[in-house]
């Protein structure tokens, strides 16, 4: 499946079907993240059940503390 993640096209492996999978794909599963799918913010409690479709535009922001 192809997704647009943070503005760039990314080919996802077969098993990726939910927002949670996308987050894990980028190694952000232990981070605090904000995710938007097709311009709609996704509540973090729904990461695991929010299905992502072919061509979905996903924005992911993860929080960091450095400065």
């Amino acid at each position, binding site marked *: 499946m192809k997704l647009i993640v943070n503005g*760039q096209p990314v080919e996802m492996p077969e098993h990726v079907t939910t927002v949670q999978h996308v987050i894990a794909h980028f190694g952000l599963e232990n*981070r*605090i993240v904000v995710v*938007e799918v097709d311009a709609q*913010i996704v509540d973090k409690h729904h990461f695991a059940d929010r299905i992502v479709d072919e061509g979905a535009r996903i924005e992911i922001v993860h929080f*960091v*503390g450095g400065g």
Partner: protein
Amino acid sequence: MMAEQDQPSFDRYSRQMSFGPIGTAGQQQLAECHVLIVGAGALGSTSAETLVRAGVGHVTIIDRDYVEWSNLQRQQLYTEENVRQRMPKAIAAKQHLERINANVQIDAYVLDARGEDLERLITGVDLIMDACDNFETRFILNDIAAKYRIPWIYGACIGSYGLSYTILPGDTPCLSCMMDIIPNGGESCDVDGIIAPAVQMVVAHQTAEAFKLLTGNHDALHRKLVSFDLWNNQYTAINIQAMKKQGCSSCGDQATYPYLQSPATEKAAILCGRDTVHLRPSEAMKLDLRTLSEQIRQYHSRQLQVDIMNDFLLSAHRDEQRIVLFVDGRALVHGTTDIQAARQLYIQMINISTVSTR
């Protein structure tokens, strides 16, 4: 006597005043504003320089650290001389900034910002710039901002990545709305490295937002959580207004400001990736560093060697460990991540000194 053309004048801001949305009126507004910058590391020194050059009338800087070699690659206010003198960052920043713009009042405080310090320093502040290197301080700052209804601009970076968000109390979600727990240290770890452009990009967002806020251009505010990765060429902005929580303990109707409630206790923290422990006494002290340094030299020179002392701190070492003791009783113990070992060295130092409570 300086010739007239050598005197600084309002004309120094001509390019900024020619920028329509700021104009002469906006410049005047900037001159009447007071900005508090929490942290004077990479973000703080960059932010401070921009705001001071821009003519913000009053800038207060808080920082707990001193200048080291590894800072110079990105912390643009500091020099090799500052490193050699182990200057506290807040002091070095003030000295440098005063040479850039003498018309700005700059106050500097060498301290580890806790609630009570911020409550004391917040009077008259129009805006808080986040330049912290840890989430713990940011949550304190978030509570202060919510309690006194002062806007603050979150900014953080690591590697080539950074993000920023402008928090307006009573309007946007706050930091507690965005995350219900304090993220642990892993994400601010120095081992991941950082490049200067990531710092400058975060600060570019923060200071542009600051100009908009301080000159009354609220309609121009970004209002989204912005992030970027300069190495992977990614730019993102998300509208997070929906994250605002009615029952938020920091900004909700029944706010309790949980991060201002923490009791004054002794605190020890391992500074991630720096092989350093930060120790903070339960109450601020006022150490007589000159006498302490003399006592070490006369009676304890077999265990401890004094490296340098200035008006703000004393640096000494014992074998591989180096301790930097500040006037307020805080210490950074380098060369260890063992809190017990750090504390042991600290207590040895404190016991030598004549302690007086502030």
